[in-house]
């Protein structure tokens, strides 16, 4: 599914990723944990194609395709989804219009027929109900006036609608209370299956109580310094990141 080898990247001349090696097989959920400034968000942006990051070496392939050579919208059409740490507000762009435009762009890419407004609304309402989202969120501007929790739920709604094969969740737990966290985790768990993989990026172990990963990787100073099973997250919780460095 996702294979990263020796990936190095700079931001404004400063090397942030210093050689990442990581493989997420199909059907698995992997967690990346790391302290602030370790390169977690940079990794998610590099994988999703944000401008401003210079790839200086290594490779990332997604289902065999060269991910780094693709435009962000091509990566999305190929099945990659990034849930943003800070979802962006789009004043004046209605949430329904945004979601339908995105969904139809991806369906076009897959050669599937586009959904008309009625078909889309039916699908969106169904998914929103599962995420306990009020229906009027469809009418509002994208993320405009949403609380922190609503924004994150809107990210999970987008994921549920776009149905990616690989979802990168960039600190989706930040700013969530425990109820919202559970809803978000349920949204991710509902997608779990043999054709869905996820890279859950988080600072805290808390989220991993609800989305239990197959593997946990520790990212420090631009490198994966340790990998292990879910128990590694507990160890980090108990001993902090310094315990890993010492190990």
């Amino acid at each position: 599914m996702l294979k990263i080898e020796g990936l190095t990247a700079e931001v404004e001349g400063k090397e942030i990723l210093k050689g990442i090696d990581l493989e997420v097989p199909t059907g698995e959920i992997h967690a990346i944990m790391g302290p602030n400034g370790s390169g977690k968000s940079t990794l998610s942006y590099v994988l999703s194609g944000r401008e401003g990051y210079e790839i200086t070496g290594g490779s990332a392939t997604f289902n065999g395709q060269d991910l780094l050579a693709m435009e962000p919208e091509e990566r999305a059409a190929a099945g990659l989804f990034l849930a943003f740490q800070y979802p962006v507000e789009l004043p004046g762009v209605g949430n329904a219009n945004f979601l339908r435009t995105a969904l139809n762009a991806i369906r076009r890419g897959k050669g599937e027929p586009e959904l008309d407004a009625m078909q889309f609304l039916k699908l969106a309402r169904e998914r929103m109900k599962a995420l306990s989202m009020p229906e009027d969120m469809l009418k509002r501007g994208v993320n405009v006036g949403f609380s922190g929790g609503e924004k994150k739920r809107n990210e999970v709604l987008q994921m549920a609608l776009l149905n990616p094969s690989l979802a990168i969740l960039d600190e989706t737990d930040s700013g969530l209370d425990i109820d919202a966290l559970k809803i978000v985790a349920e949204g991710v768990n509902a997608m779990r299956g043999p054709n869905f993989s996820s890279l859950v990026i988080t600072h805290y172990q808390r989220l991993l109580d609800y989305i239990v990963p197959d593997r946990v990787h520790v990212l420090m100073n631009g490198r994966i310094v340790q990998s292990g099973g879910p128990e590694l997250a507990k160890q980090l919780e108990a001993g902090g990141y310094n315990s890993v460095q010492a190990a």
Partner: protein
Amino acid sequence: MSATGDIVTAGNALTEPGAAGFLQRYEGLRARFPGQRLPWLAARREAAAEAFRAQGFPTRRVEAWKYTDLAPLTQAGFGEALTSVDGALPLPRAAAPRRVVFVDGRFRADLSDPEAPVRNLADHLGAAEGLLGSLARTEDLPLVALNTAMFEDGALIDLAAGEDGGVVELLHVTLADRPVAVHPRHLVRLGAGAKLVLIERNWGHGEGRYLNSPVLEFEVAAEAHVTHARLQQEGKGGIHLSTVFARVAEGGTYDSFLLHAGAKLARSEAHVTLAGPKAAAHLNGAQLLGDGQHGDCTTFLEHSAPDCPSRQTVKTVLAGKSRGVFQGKILVDQIAQRTDGYQMNQALLLSDQAEIDSKPQLEIYADDVKCSHGATVGELDENQVFYMRSRGIPEATARSLLIEAFLQEAVEGVTDETARAALAEAVAGWWEKVA
């Protein structure tokens, strides 16, 4: 194009460039202008020609024209519009159920809905006395003087007290296959409590050079309400120079929206007077300027009665090497206490070669007044573009949606659904066409 009928070829030679050429044409056509047997009108034309002769075309030395250079107009010759073309024409889809059509400055009964509450001016000039020129000044506005001297036709809408004129599209088509210069004159009068939604559309067919320079006068009586949606969709080589005058009596409303989408060079001037208490004006607008286009939205709003609200939101989007101008003057007379004025103009620069010049001007002589104004210039937020692309939305679509969102606030102010839909359609997908 399947144009049939007799084309008058005699006037096809181009005039010499500049004001002299237009004056030559005036002399040559004078005897043939409609309404020359009406002494008041002949005198008015003659005085207007004199006013134009005295002023010439404005240059950038004139303060009001500092940002708009008429060189494309004054350095070229223009040809006669004295052709009669019949038969089918490629027309844009109608924006309203009832439409009247003018082609090259002349009424086309065969293309117009006879049910529309519109007469053509050329055949009803007797009814225009006291209306034509009642608002339009010629002494300091040379383009208005030129129009008054040279107009051949236009729309006459005269609604009685309480009459509802419905929604009417006034379509002016210029055939840009020859460099014509046309000066339509439209007169609109609403009696007390009358209502009208007028969708005025100036549309060019073809890419050649031409001048369309309409003048409109709106007399809005007490408690009357007019919505004036203006779609400037001239051809690529077109020059559009329009001037609107409106005078609003007590409790009346002049609700306007200007869209500049076409033309190589466009300037639309509005001169609006709130003449009675609680009269209201909305002077909203949007300019969509692509590479090589110049758009100028200039407004003069006079509050000359107490308790009047005015609202103005003008948004300009600039791509390529384009230039946008916004000049908005609000004059609050001493008598106009409790004026509530709001003016906002915002520009979105999509290219580093684009330029916007913004000049808000408040002149206030009353002491109990609430007037606010603001101006912003910005670019598209790349975070927003990336967010949308990461959801699979192609880049051009993402930018287009963000541009439409920027314009939406201005378009949303148009309350009439038909007018708003016509504007939304003109705006939709603009970026994907110019990008």
